[in-house]
């Protein structure tokens, strides 16, 4: 990846950060369900 301006770098990294934040929210929810799936109470 080549970045010629700071703006290009920011747009690239922030775009991916927003996408992965969405992935993280969904994954953490699934992770919680997996972790507590067999709790008795």
């Amino acid at each position, binding site marked *: 990846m080549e970045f010629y301006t700071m703006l290009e770098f920011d747009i690239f990294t922030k775009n991916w950060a927003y996408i992965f934040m969405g992935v993280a929210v969904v*994954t*953490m929810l699934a*992770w*919680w369900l*997996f*972790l507590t799936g067999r709790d008795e109470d």
Partner: protein
Amino acid sequence: MSNHNHHDTGKSPWITPFNVIAGLIVLMGIYLTYLRFTGGLAAVTNLDDYYPWGIWISFDLLCGVALAAGGYTTAAACYVFGIKKYHAAVRPAVLTAFLGYALVVFALHYDVGQPWRLAYPIFVQQGTTSVLFEVGLCVFLYLTVLFLEWLPAPLEWLRLKRVRNILIKLTLVLTIFGVILSTMHQSSLGALYLILPSKMHPLWYSTHLPVYFFVSSMFAGLSMVIFESTLSHRYYHNKMDKEHLEGTPHVTFGFAKAAAWIMAGYFFIKFFGVVLNANWGYLPTFYGFMFSLEMLGFVALPAFLYAKGVRDKNVRLIKWTAVVAVFGIIFNRFNVSLVAYNYHLPSELKYFPALAEIGITIFVVTVGLILFKFIGTRMPIFYEHPEFKGSH
């Protein structure tokens, strides 16, 4: 009192494998200490101008502090969050933390030398603009707090009721103070490396290093409590009372679940570090391999195994996972302080610890084990003293 053999203070023989090995290590440690304090750092270490901090900081201090985090996590769970089923784990965790921090300070003497000046940064000349001053102040205060938290055990052993009862009343205040101090210095240890943006590999350098250090200390502490509990059950089973034995499964499953949850969060915030700095290009390199091994092998894998252990009620799996997690924290702290640090240097200038340095580290750990054994076999750590039952 139950029929457990609490007061078997020992007609056991002095010559045991543990005593012989520990004795030899202590003799070696005394000799190396003599070399260090008469010949200086050069006599026993491979430290130089490129690497002023070596294995004593990486292991004895960074790992020591992270793995001693079980003290604040357990005390906070029991006294601040009111999860009383973890009560049986508090005293062993506080003892481990107290000894851990005491040994951090002990080991620091080997690095800084001139032990009579150890108190200078606190009482004589405060460098209030330095992160290291904040770390020093917090460790000084937190070691005092841990000493006070641990003190009821020897006071019960010595039957000094009045002082003991005053200290018990301070438990909540001390716990809160301990959590605040831990939050501050666990993160500040990561903040120490913020001064090195050009010397540290980009995969580990981040302005969020303090957050990474603090969050990882939480699951390091939880894993260490599980690990320490496994060893204690093996060697001190006959010292444990009913409450301790019944409370252990709650601690194992509860702490494994908490660790799995925190590790998942930690995995993501570390991952966002790669994303926000666009560090993808470094991943197919040696450093990328080390970083991926750390994140996948020592964070994601133990998180999954903890979760699997909790779901399947598999104590054995959780105990082995705690070993992996503890090793993972050691791996992370070594990666930050030695592997990522000075990554641009040619290999002939890189640091590798001298045998004497490793010897002193083994000596420090052995002193900790001896003290733990001495206290664990004599004081009410794994059982409630019959005269103070239910009063804390």
